[in-house]
């Protein structure tokens, strides 16, 4: 199979994730969309790795996964505490620090 097709898929996934970040309000959904974008990047890395015939892209994909896992831990904690204090998971409600 032509590896370029994986890139098309990665672009599609990234676009879906980006659009989700921009139009949805729910923090959990936003979070999922961010994960989607990260995984789209991972897919692109792996595809490039295959196209160029070396392992660099695959190594970076591992890094991305580690960072994403850490981010999930912190992000979910923030979302949970936000929900506890404000009884809402809407990101638009958390805009109190503007002037």
């Amino acid at each position, binding site marked *: 199979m032509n590896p370029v097709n994986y890139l098309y898929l990665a672009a599609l996934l990234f676009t879906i994730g*980006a659009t989700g*970040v*921009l*139009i949805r*309000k729910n923090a959990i959904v*936003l979070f999922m969309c961010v994960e989607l974008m990260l995984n789209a990047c991972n897919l692109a890395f792996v595809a490039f790795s295959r196209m160029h015939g070396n392992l660099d892209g695959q190594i970076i994909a591992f890094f991305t996964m580690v960072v994403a896992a850490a981010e999930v831990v912190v992000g979910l904690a923030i979302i949970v505490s936000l929900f506890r204090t404000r009884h809402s998971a809407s*990101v*638009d409600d*958390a*805009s*109190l*620090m*503007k*002037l």
Partner: protein
Amino acid sequence: MENLIALLIAAPLFGAVVLLCGGRRLDKTGHWIGTLLAAVSFGIGVVLFADMLGRSADERTLTQNLYTWIPVEGFQADMAFQLDQLSMTFVLLISGVGTLIHVYSIGYMEHDERRRRFFGYLNLFVAAMLLLVLADNYLLLYFGWEGVGLASYLLIGFWQHKPSAATAAKKAFLVNRVGDMGLSIAIMLMFTTFGTFAFTPVFGAVGETSEGMLTAIGLMLLLAACGKSAQVPLQSWLGDAMEGPTPVSALIHAATMVTAGVYLIVRSAAVFNAAPDAQLVVTVVGAVTLLFGAIVGCAKDDIKKALAGSTMSQIGYMILAAGLGPIGYVFAIMHLVTHGFFKAGLFLGAGSVMHGMNDEVDMRKYGALRTYMPVTFVTFGLGYLAIIGFPGLSGFFSKDMIIEAAFAKGGTEGWILGGVTLLGAGITAFYMTRVMLLTFFGEKRWQPDADGHEPHPHESPKSMTIPMVILAFGSVFAGAFFEIGERFLKWLEPVTGYSHGNPPVSAMTVTAATMVMLLVGVGIAWAMYGRRPVPVVAPRGSLLTRAARRDLYQDDFNHVVLVRGGEHLTRSLVYVDHSLVDGVVNGTAASVGGLSGRLRKLQNGYARSYAVSMFGGTAILIAATLLMRAV
């Protein structure tokens, strides 16, 4: 012998330090310490004088180099003194008359609780003046010059609880500052031109210097002299300086301060001789001040202010003589010395009269005091005869010499200057006779003072009358002593040089003309104040009289031109500061503030709009990268 020179200054300086730092425990003895140290200085002066007389004219100059004051590469100022005949004359005058004034002050300031401090200031004054005349370079002279300014400020404002005295002191200080600026500029010009400011090398290098530069230096020195010697246009402080205690007026007018300007010009003779334009300006300043002071002196009812006008006029004579060049230098100094005697005597006499009259200064409230104060009357009278130039007394010789020298300048200039000095002699006779008649003759016009005390005129204590008697002796005999065998001329000639000039008329003619002017002046004064009773309240007077009472509008002139001008300048500067400088600063701040106010709106707190800007930024970066690749 030369090691004694520093002691001349050190003695009064030591007195000033001890008295001013000693505190109250010296209150009982302070005046004796001050007087003693002034007398010590005079004693050393006499010893040095005797020593100087013992040597031939060429070997009379002594120098003492204490140490290098400012040792910088290419800029060296020595703490070095030079004692020649000119300095010697001043040393004897300053310390001698100064000591007499110290003695007088013991009685005069007896009831003043700050007498110790007064004597400290007097000692400081004498020390600064001695430093001024003994310095061997202009920078050290400038040090003494400023010291004199400081001491005069402290003494004029001695009764600082009176606002008028505090203001007068400030005025004297500020007006003097203008002159001091001239001296500092002159010193800087000397340094850039000659590379040094010591007397000997500067005077030696005059021959190789352009006349324009010498004229500039001369004019700046003249400005300095105008400030210290109260010459037009910097004369306005002298009248107000009468706010100080009377001994201070005597010290300022006779021995120190106002004589400094004459000293400076005569000392810088080499510079002025090579700059005829500067000399001409000097004579003009002298001539104008001579008449100015005399006219002011005619109208004042305050005895001290009338005498102040007279000082201004007499110093005008000296400056005029100093401007004549070698024809006049010797006579300028000779008149300075005789004037030192009779003006000190007159001021001390005036102080004695005030002492007896509850500090009243208005001469219209005196009258008929000659029987109540016989000693004061006689000594004041002798001083009076000396200053108007009564034949045989001091002023006769010294003033006559200046008038002759003015004529001897030659040409139209000589006639004009001679005429002015003759006219001045007549006016001098008029206003001094007026002072004399108002104070000691006529009827009693005494008035009770503000507290209702009737004045009980009485003779002053011995400590005050003895100095007056000694000064009266000087007023009578000094002139004749100097003149017999031309002693003074021979004494000073090696330092200042001398030339006869070319007198258009004989000396006898000049003397006769002076006598005529003198008789006319005395006659008019007698007709106005001797024959008729004097009104206690001053009549309105003619336009000239009213102008003269206001010091010929000198303060009004200064106010309109300098004070108002300064106010307008500061106002326009404030306006520029507010509109331009502050405008730029405030405008920058306001525009940055406004811009950030708008930028702040971007921070709306919505996570998704931040995400948009991130995506947008990324998109722009990628687009730019691609574009750069394509190009």
